[in-house]
């Protein structure tokens, strides 16, 4: 196996993402849609907005991650590039991780970059900003992993998207709870350490198990 395959795949995925410019900007668009629509809906009171800010940013991150899932493996499945992963000389879990990395770079990273701006717009207390970023940094990769699993499981079906959301929702409950819990704790002046520790534990668990499950699911689906 040559390790050169992994950067080659990453470079190609990102190149394709850039080429689909508009689609790749959807996550950011969603973040801002949530940021603007929710205050319009609940009113601009700083206290109320500050208390729901962590949840809103996280829900936006979740939606952004969900949006791109349908295209995570499906185009490759249809044009025959996916089955080339099994020609024998490459570790499929490595390729899966690379694909998830590119998904995270497209959906997770933009949300993290614009999260400080979102925090300002929602009056999140300053002392919670660092924790918000940290929780996103640990948590969004889990969203990519779990979402990737759902995408892989539904690959062989022809009505993937509804099913995809049903599968993702239960799996991300703990992520949402620990991440928003951390930010709320920090905003209220408590230590977010326990929450972040649990979130990190989840990330480690997901990193070890999910790529294996994804490879198995992909394999079953291409047969």
């Amino acid at each position, binding site marked *: 196996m*040559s390790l050169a395959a992994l950067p080659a795949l990453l470079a190609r995925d990102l190149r394709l993402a850039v080429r689909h410019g508009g689609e790749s900007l959807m996550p950011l668009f969603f973040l801002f849609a949530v940021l603007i629509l929710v205050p319009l809906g609940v009113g601009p009171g700083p206290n109320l907005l500050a208390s729901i800010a962590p949840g809103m940013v996280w829900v936006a991150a979740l939606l952004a991650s969900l949006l791109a899932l349908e295209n995570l493996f499906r185009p490759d499945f249809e*044009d*025959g*590039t996916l*089955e*080339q992963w*099994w020609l*024998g*000389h490459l570790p499929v879990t490595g390729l899966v991780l690379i694909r998830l990395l590119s998904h995270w770079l497209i959906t997770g990273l933009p949300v993290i970059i614009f999260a400080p701006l979102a925090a300002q717009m929602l009056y999140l207390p300053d002392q919670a900003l660092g924790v918000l970023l940290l929780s996103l940094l640990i948590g969004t990769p889990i969203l990519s992993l779990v979402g990737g699993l759902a995408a892989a499981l539904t690959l062989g079906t022809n009505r993937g998207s509804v099913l995809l959301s049903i599968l993702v929702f239960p799996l991300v409950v703990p992520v949402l709870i620990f991440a928003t819990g951390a930010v709320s704790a920090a905003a209220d002046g408590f230590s977010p350490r326990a929450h972040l520790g649990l979130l990190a534990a989840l990330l480690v668990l997901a990193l070890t198990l999910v790529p294996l499950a994804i490879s198995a699911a992909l394999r079953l689906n*291409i047969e």
Partner: protein
Amino acid sequence: MSLLLEANGVTFRRQGDLVFAPVDLQLAAASALVILGPNGCGKTTLLRLLAGILRPAEGQLLRNGSTAFLGHASALKGDLNCRENLDFLRHFHGRAGLSSSQALVRTGLAGLGLRPARTLSAGQKRRLGLAGLLVAPRPIWLLDEPYASLDDAGGELVDSLLAEHTATGGGVVLSTHQRKPRLRAAHGELVVRKAAPEETA
């Protein structure tokens, strides 16, 4: 003579049913094997099995050397241009063969390097797929209907590529139901048969 590929009693099941009768085959270096059979008898399934994409339900499969598989879907990214597609294959498989430009010239696609692959005609896509075999050389070629949608010149091209590949010690398994390849190398034929319905206890 070393064996590149060996299958003993290999089968595959779909929904629990055998797709084709058990297959035994051997592919020596510098030789070719033509898989014949009517539509729907499992030629594509057999090739995907040999490639390692599918796992055999029964039987053993041995592969000595890395494999290239060219199926119905051309495994090209329509949004990338021809040159980018080939460059990706070169890096992905990590074996330097011909340069992308040389491969394009060899397969008669000179001058089309910057065209997005989705704008190519079916025959041109096929040629680009063949170019992909040249930029990342692998000893075992598994070609599913390589002549499909190619014109006469394209058919000649496949024949000459096959001759070159076997001359340099490679092995080829290809399936066809139309044009009999004019192979200069030693080659065998294998007819795939539909499995007889079996009685399960």
